[in-house]
């Protein structure tokens, strides 16, 4: 008769094996497509430019307490990035993109990688865009431990360890999704948002609140502006041959 310990240990070993098997499933990254259907004619391409503003009183910036990690505590003190308002009430970190109107066009995937760095115990940049199939390069410039935890709804969730300064991981998203939150569970204040699209017509507003969507074929588009706290707004914009259309979004505080 087998001893009870052998039975307990055997049962648990089987359990562990099942866990290991289940955890080893990894989706292969999508192959990068070079197919370009209905390519945009540069001779007729237009541009949508604009500015995003905040209407009302801007919330007071809150400084981040980073004392849970001695390394982070030595970094320059910064305020939270959830609502960043510039002069003239311009709004930074707004992801503006073409939501609809491109039809069944297929766009080439850029060969260059988009970089998300962990620097000074913050994500740099705080908001960024990337194309499906394009490589996201996640760096750590910090001499402390970070974990990079992406929490998508449509793509595969991942949580990777960054043990050393200079370490680099790459990831490729398989499905368009606006927006994917990123966070560091080690440092609660660290978060970022990544917009994944199947085309290159997106931008993130800078300090002056401005954006530019270049190289659009003539047509009518739904343009959306996304902000992590203030929600989304959409506009319908029509541009003709080589035309530049200037629009503005205003979020209420």
């Amino acid at each position: 008769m087998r001893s009870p310990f052998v039975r307990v240990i055997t049962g648990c070993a089987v359990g562990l094996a099942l866990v290991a098997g289940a955890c080893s499933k990894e989706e292969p990254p999508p192959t990068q497509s070079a197919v370009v259907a209905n390519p945009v004619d540069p001779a007729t391409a237009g541009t949508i430019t604009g500015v995003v503003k905040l209407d009302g009183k801007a919330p007071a910036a809150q400084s981040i307490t980073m004392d849970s990690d001695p390394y982070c505590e030595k970094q320059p003190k910064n305020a939270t990035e959830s609502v960043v308002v510039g002069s003239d009430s311009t709004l930074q970190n707004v992801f503006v993109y073409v939501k609809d109107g491109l039809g069944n066009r297929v766009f080439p995937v850029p060969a260059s990688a988009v970089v998300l760095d962990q620097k000074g115990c913050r994500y740099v940049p705080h908001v960024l865009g990337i194309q499906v199939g394009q490589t996201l390069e996640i760096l750590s410039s910090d001499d402390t431990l970070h974990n990079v935890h992406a929490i998508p709804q449509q793509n595969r969730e991942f949580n990777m360890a960054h043990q050393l300064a200079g370490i680099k991981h790459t990831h490729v998203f398989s499905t368009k999704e606006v927006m994917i939150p990123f966070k560091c569970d080690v440092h609660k204040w660290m978060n970022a948002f990544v917009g994944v699209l199947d085309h290159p017509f997106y931008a993130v507003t800078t300090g002056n609140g401005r954006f530019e969507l270049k190289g659009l074929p003539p047509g009518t588009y739904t343009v959306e502006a996304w902000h992590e706290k203030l929600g989304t707004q959409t506009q319908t914009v029509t541009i003709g041959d080589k035309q530049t259309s200037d629009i503005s979004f205003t979020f209420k505080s």
Partner: protein
Amino acid sequence: MAFRLYTRLVALSTAVLIFAGGLVTSTGSGLSVPDWPNTYGHFMFTFPLDKMVGGIRFEHSHRLIASTVGFLILVLAVWLWRAEPRAWVRRLGYIALAAVITQGILGGITVLWYLPEPISIAHASLAQIVFCLTTAIALVTSRGWTHRTTALPSDDDVLRKLTIVTTGWIYVQVLIGATMRHTDAGLAIPDFPLAFGHLIPPHWDPKIAIHFAHRVGALVTSLLIVATAGHVFYHHRGRGELVRPVVLLLALLTAQVTLGAYTVLTEKHYIINSLHVVTGASVLVTSLVLALRAHRSRFASVDGFGGSAVEGTAIRRNQPHAAVVGGPSVPNRPGARA
């Protein structure tokens, strides 16, 4: 003596582990260490202490404490296997060992699968079972249980049923609490004692429903505990082994309701929140102790020392196995490992 102290140490360490687990969820640190069983590529026990920063402090500490408790329970199970003559008590040790190993695997799965709610809730719920098992082992190997020199009291069927219902309900309440915790419904109703200024929430969604169920569950728990306490005080005032856990139960209930209120009012302060978790577990095991003692005479026959209500049935102490390994003082059994 050493064995009895050891069983209490194991039960206490399980409570500490539950508190540490509460800190992990209360601080949102469950995924701060992405790998398992390693920690950032290091073997768990060689992970440098100076790297324990931010959320890693809570998650890695939880893993270290869990490993320690797992080892303590392994030793406890071996000790029982070698020295305990009662088969059902030995079985409790095996079950505790299997439960704590399963608990560790669930903990690993929940990390590797990014905290899926069912797994996280199962992890929290099994933790309570492990605490119940270690407490039960500490109780049934205690001197008060194994070395009676006074008559076992006559059965009180009402008390038995009341304590079973109360303990069962507290466990259900703990499950609702774990569900609320792992579905992020802890602040779904932001005020206390009212709900959005009303007795009944004026609007509903799944999180509000879970949160409100936990509050209603707390009310039912309180009524059951008060009813049990009233019964013990009225019918068994002279039985210290029942009065003591009842007094403790009332004190823990008061603390638990207060901590629950403060958890909401402090917007889930991580210390308050974690104390609420471990106090809830303590309410459960105290009720379990009371239930087991209410069933004491039923155990007399399976304990193998004279059936029910036998005066002076002190369990024999000078057993060879007990002398060798310092095991519990209980009757000999055929084939006990010496």
